[in-house]
């Protein structure tokens, strides 16, 4: 290429361009933070919901499932599981996993030995998650 393509100009564009777009990201983030309360309904985050999220994390549920589409793709989406199955089903399902697994089953879910309180809070968390405004994702109830 011509000599008129200089390294110092390329460097300036790198610094200028990345600063510019980082500022744009910060500005958009600022706006997002203003809008989020209307979409995530944070007023409904009760202590039970918050604890439910901890239960979710402590058992590494994201290692098999997706939540709002993020996570592992080994097991069903759970962002809308409350709507799909209802709270009682979710609790019964988690409780009834055999510790040694089901021989010959297609996929296996471990027995996590959750307490009744943990189960309730997990369901509260999943219920709250299902009420987040996700722009109509997933496309249907199957997740």
């Amino acid at each position: 290429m011509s000599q008129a393509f200089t390294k110092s100009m390329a460097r300036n564009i790198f610094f200028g361009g990345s600063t510019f777009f980082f500022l744009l990201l910060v500005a958009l983030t600022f706006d997002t933070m203003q809008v989020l309360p209307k979409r995530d309904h944070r007023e409904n985050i009760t202590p039970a919901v918050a604890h439910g999220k901890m239960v979710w994390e402590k058992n590494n549920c994201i290692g098999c499932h997706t939540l709002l589409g993020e996570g592992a793709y080994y097991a069903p989406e759970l962002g809308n599981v409350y709507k799909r199955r209802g709270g009682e089903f979710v609790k019964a399902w988690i409780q009834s996993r055999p510790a040694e697994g089901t021989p010959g089953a297609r996929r296996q879910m471990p027995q996590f030995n959750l307490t009744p309180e943990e189960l309730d809070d997990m369901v509260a968390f999943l219920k709250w998650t299902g009420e987040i405004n996700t722009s109509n994702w997933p496309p249907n109830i199957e997740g």
Partner: protein
Amino acid sequence: MQYQSQAVAKPYFIAAIGLFVGQILFGLIMGLQYVMGDFLFPAIPFNVARMVHTNLLIVWLLFGFMGAAYYIIPEETESELFSPKLALLMFWIFLVAGALTVVGYLLVPYAALAKMTFNDLWPTMGREFLEQPLPTKLGIVVVALAFLFNITMTILKGRKTSISLVLLMGLWGLAVFFLFSFYNPSNLVLDKYFWWWTVHLWVEGVWELILGALLAFVLIKVTGVDREIIEKWLYMIIAMTLITGIVGMGHHYFWIGTPEYWQWFGSVFSALEPIPFFMMTVFAFNMVNRRRREHPNKAATLWALGTGVMSFLGAGVWGFLHTLAPVNFYTHGTQITAAHGHMAFYGAYVMVVLTIISYAMPVMRGRAANSNKSQVLEMWSFWLMTVSIVFITLFLTAAGILQVWLQRVSTTPLGFMAAQDQITLFYWMREFTGLVFLTGLVLYIISFFVGGESKEAA
């Protein structure tokens, strides 16, 4: 080897390759669990295997990056490392911490591990890729700071080249954005929003600076092309990377509760993200075609070219496939994402680390390049691994398309498990291809032990 202290890179590279093997083995376990649900259950449930698989990947790439920095920086700054002893100490700390973490994952139920490591005091665990217990996370910060201190001091006292500057910025960025992993609010949307500041700004941001710097260094060495030319390309590539990639983060903000304008910002900017990868491919081939010397290390050149092509395919093309919001609406969180993830990580980061290892290891062992026999074997491993990853990606893409069709597009959508049953064949083919990949990796390791007449040191 021009500087004594470059030798500290060697244990880093060896550890990286060792952990790479572990990563692949766990990948194979998971692949089998996709089709044989009770394989190794309940000893190693899928979520544990996956955590080990992804965490090992991250850790071995970090080992690779650090080793690369320890190798490159003395040569670029034309001075010995500030403290080789510190580098070696950090190596052992990082290795032991990493090993303990993996052992913890495997031996203790995750919830018990969380309890043992004070997760209740400051919950950070249980989020994808950031599953590490708090002490491990703090350990990473300490190791990273000591490492950065070492590298920064070396650069300060020596020659300042653009390559070392870009590498340094990338590494600092890596440490800075990792700090977001300590932020875990109970509001899931906020959690996810800033979780991406670590994950996205790593792999589609600062890591690409590291990638660019490593590639530029190796290209200067193997092609002998003028540093000025290579460095200005480097700047243009990373400029485009950040210009498109920073706001391109919006492609993760489509469906997690964030405002809808992200669908536009994310689509527009991430649609441009293939450009820097395309430039990288053009750059690599251009430089090799304009080479001023015939470097005896053909394998390293092959890896460098492969990085260009495969990162463009994996990150660029496969990323673009599902990055537009209307498409992503259907593909989000399916095997399509997995397909993209595999090829992008292999094509960009695995390959660039193997490139620098391929170039630097012979030098550290006192020769410009390995014997012909060894290089031929290494090139075989290159092709086996690369072709395998292409096929793994294709099979997962096929699986993903079918999954999307059956579960989301169809007027009578199937449930998740029913859809999975329909695509078992592709999972079997993926697993088989994974074994070919492992064969390639074994050959790669063997190539280090193949003797024969080696090329003299340059």
